[in-house]
């Protein structure tokens, strides 16, 4: 009946699929990863960069749990910047320009060296079921593969439709076929489908650009890695270039608006508001006289340059006209044009918080199919789906991170609770407990969890323990040691003390930086990252804010601990409106806290839920009503 048998089958080897397959295999499950083209594993379909604000947090968290995106990002990274350092360490985020080919290569090498993991090139045309349980997959050549769980990570390939001006054609990514047969099969499963749109800018030939017209953007002198495990010194090997559009360009765009499929009505899918196409920017922000453009190299061994900020679906001749009107790009040659792509996604409210579909057991979704955008968002979901697919085969409890655990928890909770109407991207402003969800403590938050489920290797675990011990020793020193006030640090600054203060008292002073105390030898410490030192300093200087945050976390945890039974009969509950009953019955929140986050659920409705919950716990129904 079946040609091959696996515990976990992952369909798609993009950023979600790679993490999912690696996690399941690392956890000891017999795992197969199916891709239409093994040479394009971990392809970066859009910008040549990993991380960024909030996204860098996701990469850190993936790494802390035992995922691989951070390691690959560090190894394939060619320019590193830590963003937002003018603010507190909670919103510092690492970002790196990556060599696209290098990233594919590193990722494939990591996967090939993972035990229990088998990479397969084939087109999956059908998902097989037994009743409402997944049973395996069928391939284009007719082979059938049995699987206990299937993780679907199809990206933009489901009914992908590319638009360039008036032209459109089916594709998964530019130059790759879409998955039409698979899409048609899954269509009939009764999921709540939607259509989204995203876009990518044109790529140029480096040799035809006059870089003198641009402002260079360099990497940090001290690169910050994504991974806690990266020990090699990272190197900045390239530079990016910044410029801006002007009125002349805007008028070219305006006069060609009728040829943009976005505005002609040809594109029906909804695009992300935070990543608008250049034509959107010009139309929607007419008062803005310029828009930022950043030229980013796609790699070391290529001349291809990514034109960040110029995502577009305008016809190729208009793209050319725009580019040639830009200073420094007058004679630039286009290697490939920008395009918009529409694709199918499933409303993620179809999923449990462990990313298994509610309708079909053993069937997990991760990445763009869930309505998200971004490599990091995809990778994080892939990791969670892979972990839970493995836990399901093992018969263990699912892993669900909450909103105070991790950005990953916030993203998954947002998706399964609210669904999405535009491609979902992570922001730090989505994190209510942002001060606690830092890049420097991602390991403290998540590595023990990764260890418990068998994803964190011995080597990783030992590195973790050593690192936490180093931080603990510094904290201990700062909290307990007394300051030697005769040190030149104080003398040179004219600081005088009546008695010997503790370091904590000292650091509370606004003008004193812990990093300076360490730098000038007032405190002796082992090798630590800048983020660790600043984070410790912040916890002293702004203790009150952190405590305020902790109280909020407690409130959340209390509301999360009020679990709602899976068989709760909302329809029979007096006092709830029909609309609220419909929402609760569809989303089936796991807790009072999750219920309170469903759009349209009022505080009064929550009070009623609490009341019925209490009544149920006491095994009593209100008399004569229900």
């Amino acid at each position, binding site marked *: 009946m079946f040609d091959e048998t696996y515990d976990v089958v992952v369909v798609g080897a993009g950023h979600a699929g790679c993490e999912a397959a690696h996690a399941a295999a690392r956890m000891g499950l017999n795992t197969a990863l199916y891709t239409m083209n093994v040479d394009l594993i971990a392809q970066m379909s859009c910008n040549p960069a990993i991380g960024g604000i*909030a996204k860098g947090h996701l990469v850190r968290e993936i790494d802390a749990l035992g995922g691989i995106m951070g390691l690959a990002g560090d190894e394939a990274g060619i320019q590193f910047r830590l963003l937002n350092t003018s*603010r*507190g360490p909670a919103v510092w985020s690492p970002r790196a320009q990556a060599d696209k080919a290098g990233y594919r290569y590193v990722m494939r090498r990591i996967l090939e060296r993972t035990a229990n993991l088998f990479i397969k090139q084939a087109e999956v045309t059908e998902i097989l079921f037994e009743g409402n349980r997944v049973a395996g997959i069928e391939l284009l050549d007719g082979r059938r593969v049995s699987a206990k769980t299937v993780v679907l990570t199809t990206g933009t390939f489901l009914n992908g439709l590319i638009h360039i001006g008036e032209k459109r054609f089916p594709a998964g990514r530019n130059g790759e076929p879409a998955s039409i047969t698979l899409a048609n099969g899954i269509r009939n499963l009764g999921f709540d489908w939607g259509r989204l749109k995203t876009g990518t800018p044109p790529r140029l030939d480096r040799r035809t650009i006059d870089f003198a017209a641009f402002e260079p953007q360099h990497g940090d002198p001290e690169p910050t890695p994504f991974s806690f495990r990266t020990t090699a010194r990272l190197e900045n090997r390239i530079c990016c270039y910044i410029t801006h559009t002007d009125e002349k360009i805007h008028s070219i765009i305006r006069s060609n608006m009728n040829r943009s499929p976005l505005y002609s009505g040809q594109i029906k899918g909804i695009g992300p508001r935070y990543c608008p196409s250049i034509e959107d920017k010009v139309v929607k922000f007419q008062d803005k006289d310029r828009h930022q453009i950043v030229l980013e190299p796609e790699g070391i061994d290529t001349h291809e340059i990514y034109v960040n900020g110029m995502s577009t679906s305008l016809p190729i001749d208009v793209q050319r006209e725009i580019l040639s009107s830009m200073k420094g790009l007058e004679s630039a040659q286009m290697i490939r044009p920008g395009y918009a792509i529409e694709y199918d996604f499933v409303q993620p409210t179809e999923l449990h918080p462990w990313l298994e579909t509610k309708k079909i057991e053993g069937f997990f979704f991760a990445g763009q199919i869930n309505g998200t955008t971004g490599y990091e968002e995809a990778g994080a979901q892939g990791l969670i789906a892979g972990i839970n697919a493995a836990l399901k085969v093992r018969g263990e409890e699912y892993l669900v991170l909450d909103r105070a655990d991790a950005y990953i928890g916030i993203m998954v909770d947002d998706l399964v609770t609210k669904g999405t109407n535009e491609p979902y991207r992570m922001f730090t*402003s989505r994190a209510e407990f942002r001060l606690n969800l830092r890049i420097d403590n991602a390991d403290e938050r998540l590595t023990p969890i990764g260890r418990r489920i068998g994803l964190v290797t011995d080597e990783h675990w030992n590195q973790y323990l050593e690192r936490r011990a180093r931080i603990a020793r510094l904290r201990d020193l700062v909290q307990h040691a007394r300051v030697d006030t005769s040190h030149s640090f104080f003398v040179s600054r004219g600081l005088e003390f009546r008695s010997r203060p503790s370091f904590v008292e000292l650091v509370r002073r606004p003008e004193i930086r812990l990093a300076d105390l360490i730098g000038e030898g007032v405190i002796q410490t082992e090798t630590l990252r800048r983020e660790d030192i600043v984070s410790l300093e912040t916890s002293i200087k702004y203790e009150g*804010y952190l405590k305020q945050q902790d109280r*909020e976390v407690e409130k959340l945890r209390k509301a999360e601990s009020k679990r709602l039974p899976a068989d709760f009969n909302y329809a029979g509950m007096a006092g709830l409106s029909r609309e609220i009953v419909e929402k609760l019955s569809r989303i089936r929140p796991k807790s009072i806290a999750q219920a309170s986050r469903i759009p349209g659920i009022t*505080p009064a409705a929550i*009070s009623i839920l609490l009341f019925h919950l209490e009544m149920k716990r006491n095994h*009593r129904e209100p008399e004569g009503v229900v």
Partner: protein
Amino acid sequence: MLEGLHKIVSSDETIVAISTPIGRSGIGVVRLSGMEACAIANRFFRMPSANSFLEHRTAMVGVWLDANAPEVAEVAEVDEVVVTFFRAPHSYTGEDVIEISAHGNPLTLKRIVETAKSAGARIAAPGEFTLRAVAHGKMDLVQAEAVRDFIDAQTEQQARTAMRQMEGGLSKHIRPVKEKLIDVIAHLEAGIDFAEDDVDVPANTAIAESIQPLADELLRWEKTFEYGRMLNQGLLLAILGKPNVGKSSLFNQLIARDRAIVTEIPGTTRDVLTETISMDGVPLRFADTAGVRQTTDRVESIGVSRTFETLADADLALVVLDGSASIDDDDRCVLQRTGQTRHLIVINKADLPQIIETTALNGAPRVAVSARTGEGLDDLRDALKSFLLEHKTDVASLVLTSARQHEVIGRSARSLGAAAEALNRQVPHEMVLLDLYSALSALDELTGDVVTEDILDRIFSTFCIGK
């Protein structure tokens, strides 16, 4: 949104509360709801005969006893009451409900509540009776919202305020403040989340300057609560004095009917009587109290101690002196005891030859009246009206009427103040935002809206974000 979870209730417990506004009428009602309601009534309610029992929808006259009080008959008997039983589900809440109607004296009602508490009942959370009614399908939410405000409306001015709030009057005031706050938050958030895009974030001092007026506005609203409370609960005006200075006559004049018994015999009034009238739309509760003097009479001395309890709750004391006599030790005792309370001296018996030496009163505000002829009563009313005016507010169309609104607006104002102060201290924005979100979610508690998506919507419509 978590803020919405403050009403965490347990259906298991029997709840109790005074369900009529305090002191507003001759009758006050205490309501019990839940499994134990009947048992509690059976324990404290002495029915007319040993064969009586509580029957659904039947009112019964009897005595409420305080089983915990010492063995003195007049102390253990809390009050003569009417008890009505409603069996579940045919009651307001859908649970077993006991309604105890007693005399409207707040102290009596409080004692009834205390006895119920001693038997395991819990004080109901605000709106909990109604919440239980909704949860048991006795009414829907929209009705529930409307109920409370109408129950309370006693004077026209109150009804207008309640109406205005039901029409979203408060929300209408909050919305523009909220809009500005969301704007500030969106700017700060955009600065953090889109630091890589060229987003202009104003300087800290400029942001602090835009927050301060919002905080000030909320503080102004917070102050309207005193006026709102006055509208809602009315003011308690205690009429005090030694025996036989004419307190009860004055009381009857002020409430414009013969409520208190008036005799020549000193010490006729032994308990506190209250009556409410409306003056300029504000409910004024006048309390006629037992005359203050040294006494060995057991009942009279209980009356005197209740006089001082009433004084403690009073917003204004009307100290009545006899103009036709000299100030004596009992008068001095009254004047001394009212020294801590806002008071107005009423010199009664202006129709008789005046002997009182007013110089001894040190220029304290006073009015001369004759409770018998009505002379000077308009002056007294004018004095009371100017006392009311002090409580009036300059925010013409907005009045906070519930303690919850007052608490929430105050909390929001303080969070905004803290944020403005932190900005001036250059505290990082992600921390300042904690206070700004607290301020915002407090306002959301009052309008019933939800936050996060608002912020992102605002960011995307304000800034051109994205590469």
